[in-house]
């Protein structure tokens, strides 16, 4: 990639787009929230432009080199979204706007209608409209979404346009990418459940399109279908949830519903059983979207999509939608604020699902060799953490312990933030690895990129020792992994600790049912330490396992910058935000991110104290167990099995060099016996879930569909055909009466005459 230096001038077209928001902020006195529509509309406008221009100017040199097949345009739209978001976030953080104030104001009156009420009067003019809803949750997720969309689009320009397999179809990628961004932004901003659902589905569509980006690949197309259908199952239940909610509250607007969730439409008292089912249905939707047990099967397959897609959709943004939805449900159960009591079971269910998924995904991740699959299971597992946290939060809020509830809610959302940043970065890094390995492979087997199909650039068994070849990537990957593992002081630690602790707290609180999730996620903490480390060591440490590795080198700047930015955020962002009280902010306990009047040092000490030495001795035990498991046992095990020194003469940079060396010193352990066991086999087969589902479908659904088709053709239509053929038969028979002999005709006439007499006599007698 010789023209590296010149590439930045391509960003010049972005400038006018970047100028939009500053101009607006100067021109207008109104609140930036009024311009929130820009976030959604910018990608909306850009989507058809990219798609159509790309189709028309396909293969045009300028389009390819200057506009990066639409990538620059996409980036421009996303830059508008990002800058608007930053503007809004800034506005809120400095306290110009009040988070608590959200009024019903329809920006778009989508449909309006009337409802026949049970007292036979017709309510006038219900409106399903859409407007913007901003609170801390929105702000956090909006920032995550716009920021990552922007960065990953940036990354994709480098990643996609240099991959020969994408030749001439990148406009499709960028258009769908932008459309996805629209869905994500819209979902976060929507002020009611219906539009949340609508954008939710738009994301689903884009996920489908992007997973199936390499549509000619059977595996990709099948994965796309699987993803769409599995999430569709959840979506349908989500929709039923909406229906129930609408029936209860007569509206789907957050403002109306959350104003007083215990009172339904017309002042009716909301039954907890009724609401429970609504929430359950919504939760099933969330489970589908966030790939939780038992609707988790689609996420690993979704890695068939291009890596930027995995990074954005299947790690950082879309899969968070389920979490976002569940977090949105808090007001329903928050008895402190008019919530409906008696919904602890819902919290428990959420926590259990989270716990099960976390453990299951982590264990499957043990045996994955595909670098992206490891990350996919890791994503699943981490999302499950958050679900467990949210479950605890639901439980606490519903039982009245709102302090604990808010804390674990904030922690969960904070983990969401950390995980999104880290996982987005990890995927990009893995993309970088794959990309370069692939390039190196192509370079090595020159011009025969179709020749060697056996080589899988995603297989970690082909890697090893990359730490020296890819300094930036390995560093980024290390910090990302650390954040996910929860290495103390780094990113995810701050949030994960809170989740585990509070889940246990719920158990200690007297809820025995909470023990399960608590134990599961505790175990998962250690497992996370193992498989994330394993991935890192397999990739970057040890001897190269393939001749390709020698030719790997980092090249494209488009890939490096986003990694660097995210590494920074992952490494210190978590800590910084924790100090600024993000947990309280996210749970709406506080309005701003600030030091709360303490000095910086005080705050740091307070946070550290809170993390490592909580007052409750039981929780202290849990905390240290977690640290022990995730920090020591997991990584050390991984290092012993997969770690090792680099090849002679190679050296890594200081950020990662120590780790490689350390792993080399820990020695090796042979685990072949374990790898060949039944358990490993089962894990490799993903605990047979896919087989089970496929088996059920092929044994029930497909035969039944075929039976229906047969039934329709042979029974329902068969009756018609029978009538037809019987008529024809009758026709032939009746025509035989016309024998052609006049004698018979006279006979018939006579018989007829006799019949007439008989009738006349019979009727009149």
């Amino acid at each position, binding site marked *: 990639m010789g023209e590296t230096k010149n590439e930045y001038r391509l960003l010049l077209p972005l400038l006018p787009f970047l100028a939009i928001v500053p101009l607006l902020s100067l021109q207008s006195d109104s609140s930036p929230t009024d311009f929130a529509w820009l976030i959604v509309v910018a990608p909306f406008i850009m989507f058809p432009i990219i798609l159509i221009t790309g189709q028309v100017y396909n293969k045009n040199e300028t389009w390819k080199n200057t506009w990066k097949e639409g990538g620059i345009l996409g980036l421009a739209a996303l830059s508008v979204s990002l800058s608007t978001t930053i503007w809004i976030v800034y506005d809120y953080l400095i306290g110009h706007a009040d988070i608590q104030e959200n009024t019903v104001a329809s920006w778009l009156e989508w449909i*309006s209608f009337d409802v026949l009420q049970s007292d036979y009067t017709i309510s006038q003019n219900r409106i399903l409209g859409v407007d913007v809803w901003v609170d801390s949750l929105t702000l956090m997720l909006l920032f995550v979404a716009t920021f990552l969309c922007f960065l990953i689009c940036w990354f994709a320009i480098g990643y996609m346009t240099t991959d020969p397999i994408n030749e001439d179809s990148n406009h499709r990628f960028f258009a769908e990418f932008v459309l996805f961004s629209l869905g994500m932004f819209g979902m976060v901003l929507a002020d009611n459940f219906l539009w949340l659902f*609508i954008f939710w589905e738009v994301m689903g569509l884009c996920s489908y399109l992007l997973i199936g980006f390499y*549509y000619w*690949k059977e595996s990709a197309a099948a994965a796309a279908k699987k993803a769409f259908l599995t999430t*569709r199952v959840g979506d349908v239940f989500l929709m039923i949830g909406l229906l129930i909610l609408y029936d209860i509250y007569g509206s789907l607007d957050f403002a109306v519903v959350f104003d007083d969730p215990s009172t339904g439409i017309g002042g009716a008292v909301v039954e907890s059983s009724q609401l429970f089912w609504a929430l359950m249905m919504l939760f099933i939707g969330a489970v589908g979207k966030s790939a939780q047990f038992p609707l988790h099967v689609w996420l690993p397959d979704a890695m068939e999509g291009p890596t930027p897609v995995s990074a954005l959709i299947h790690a950082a943004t879309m899969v968070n939608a389920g979490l976002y939805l569940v977090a949105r449900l808090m007001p329903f159960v928050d008895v402190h604020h008019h919530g409906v009591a008696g919904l602890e079971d819902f919290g428990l269910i959420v926590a259990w699902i989270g716990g099960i998924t976390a453990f299951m995904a982590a264990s499957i991740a043990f045996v994955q060799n595909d670098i992206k699959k490891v990350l996919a299971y890791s994503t699943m597992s981490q999302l499950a953490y958050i679900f467990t946290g949210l479950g605890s939060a639901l439980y606490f809020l519903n039982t009245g312990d709102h302090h604990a509830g808010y804390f674990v809610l904030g922690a969960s959302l904070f983990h969401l933030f950390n995980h999104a940043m880290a996982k987005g970065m990890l995927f990009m890094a893995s993309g970088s690895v794959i990309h370069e390995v692939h390039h190196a492979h192509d370079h090595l087997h020159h011009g025969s990129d179709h020749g060697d199909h056996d080589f899988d650039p995603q297989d970690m068994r082909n890697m090893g020792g990359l730490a020296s070849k890819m300094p930036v990537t390995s560093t980024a990957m290390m910090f990302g992994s650390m954040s996910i593992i929860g290495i103390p002081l780094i990113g995810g630690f701050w949030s994960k600790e809170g989740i585990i602790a509070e889940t246990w707290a719920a158990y200690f609180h007297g809820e025995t049912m909470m023990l399960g999730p608590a134990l599961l996620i505790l175990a998962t903490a250690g497992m996370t330490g193992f498989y994330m480390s394993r991935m890192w060591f397999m990739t970057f440490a040890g001897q190269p396992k393939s001749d390709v590795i020698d030719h790997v080198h980092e090249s494209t700047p488009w890939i490096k910058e986003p990694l660097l930015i995210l590494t920074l955020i992952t490494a210190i962002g978590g800590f910084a935000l924790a100090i600024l009280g993000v947990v309280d902010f996210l749970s709406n306990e506080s309005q701003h991110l600030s030091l709360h009047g303490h000095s910086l040092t005080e705050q740091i000490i307070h946070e550290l104290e809170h993390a490592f030495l909580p007052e409750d001795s039981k929780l202290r035990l849990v905390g240290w167990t977690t640290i022990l498991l995730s920090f020591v046992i997991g990584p050390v095990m991984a290092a012993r099995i997969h770690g090792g020194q680099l090849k002679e003469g190679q050296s890594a940079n200081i950020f990662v060099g120590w780790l490689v060396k350390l792993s080399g010193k820990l020695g090796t352990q042979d685990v072949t016996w374990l790898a060949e066991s039944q358990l490993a086999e089962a894990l490799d087969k993903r605990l047979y879930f896919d087989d089970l589902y496929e088996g059920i479908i092929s044994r029930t659904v497909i035969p039944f569909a075929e039976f*229906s088709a047969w039934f*329709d053709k042979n029974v329902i239509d068969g009756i018609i055909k029978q009538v037809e053929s019987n008529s024809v038969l009758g026709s032939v028979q009746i025509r035989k009466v016309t024998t052609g002999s006049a004698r018979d005709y006279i006979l018939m006439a006579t018989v007829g005459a006799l019949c007439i007499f008989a009738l006349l006599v019979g009727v009149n007698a």
Partner: protein
Amino acid sequence: MLTILTLTPLGVGLLLLILPQILPGSSADTLRKVNRSISFGVSMALFVIASYIAFENFGGIDWLNINMGEYQLMNDEPVTLISSIGVSWIVGVDALSLPMVWLTALLIPLSMLVEWDAKEGHIFHPLILVMEGALIGVFVALDLFVFYVFWEMTLIPMFFLILVWGGDDRKYASMKFFIYTFTASVVMLIGILIMYFHTGDIAGVSGSITGHHFNLLEMNSEMIQSEGLRHLVWILLLIGFATKMPSVPVHTWLPDAHVQAPTAGSMLLAGVMLKMGAYGFLRVAVSLFPESTVVFIPILLILGMSSLVYGAWVCMGQTNLKRMVAYSSVSHMGLIFLGIATMQPLGIAGALFMMFAHGIISPLLFAVAGAFKHHYHTLEIGSMRGIAHHSPYLAAHMMLGWMGSLGLPLLAGFVAEVAIMIAFWMSFGWLVILPALTLIITAVYYLNSMQKTIFESNDRHHGILPESLHGEEPRDITWHENTSMFILGILTVLFGIFPFIFFDMMSDWSTSFIQDVLLEEIINQGVKP
């Protein structure tokens, strides 16, 4: 205005069909082009008029405050047609029929465009024009006799479209189509006649030797004394309308007709003709017999549900693309019955919007299926793979249409679905699980069919071409097909994002419909809203 809209296409179409036969000269090719241009021009002009009527009115206050019985008649004076039996020419549109009229006027030029190069084009395009007249006639006529006349008249051009330009088995299909629907509608005719017999004489239709009239606006359910007879009439009407919609178990004409029909025929069949059933049901059966409607909600529910669920299952078992799409129409039409069965303004508005949305999505589906037939000479799902390589535009339209039909948000179909679902939950609660789960099945068969046609060739640069192509080089769709599909696609998106363009009007209509027509009966029958 509406009279022009109805009679112009009929007249011009017939003239174009007959005149060239009488006038000698001019080569076949010139004739084809001239006829085609005139037909297209006329249909475009009619579309402009229809749009003018639509946009003139749906923004205005007058339009929104329609009450049943206060139709906005475009043609004020009823003209007596056959005074002896009280037939007069009364036309009018309201929120129920206006979208349908507009839809018809829209789909006609589009379907002409799709088959721009049809063989024997000197008949083809005028025939579609005749079709337009008959279709619009059904939607605007407010005299039951005229309504019935137009109702049956639509069969004739469609019969020819299938018979002359259809597929291999067109003989059987066209006969089945004609006889099946004809049978149902003559049964309906008995119902109409019973109603007719119970009408009193009214001013303006004097001179009737029977003392009765067909004016729909002057009819009401009280005219029939016997409740049993009212129910019977309602059932007779239902048979006619349900067959047209079509609803399970009287749907089997549809797949055959669709599979054999030419693309334009399928588009019109699915886009407008099926809506005639739903329209007529609302306009005649429900409007005049609210009591029976409320009493027979279970029937509606069963019909709707079986169409929806069973139709979807049958769809899954299909291997022919067009057949599958046809069954999906059956499935979607089931939702209309369900929407009506809810007895909620929202449900009825949803049903109306379903009629409209399905009216723009299903022609797109059939245009796509037709393009497969046209360019790949086969409709067998699975006989080809990775067609997106060769026909990117076709693939894109297929994607949009398929997604629209499976009810993806921001596309028109979703609005209707969600409206019906909300109303359905209000009325029937957990029964909603059936239609909801059907949405999954819908997704399954749509995705499967897409997977097995435009995706999965396992080759970066080539698709697996069907044998029916016989080694020919595959083509993408022509510009006329592309234009037509593009317009339909844009409308699908437009009405998905801005449904209120028609939805508010429909919603207001539904409210007043419930209020004025059905509410009393709902209360009387003790149906819980």
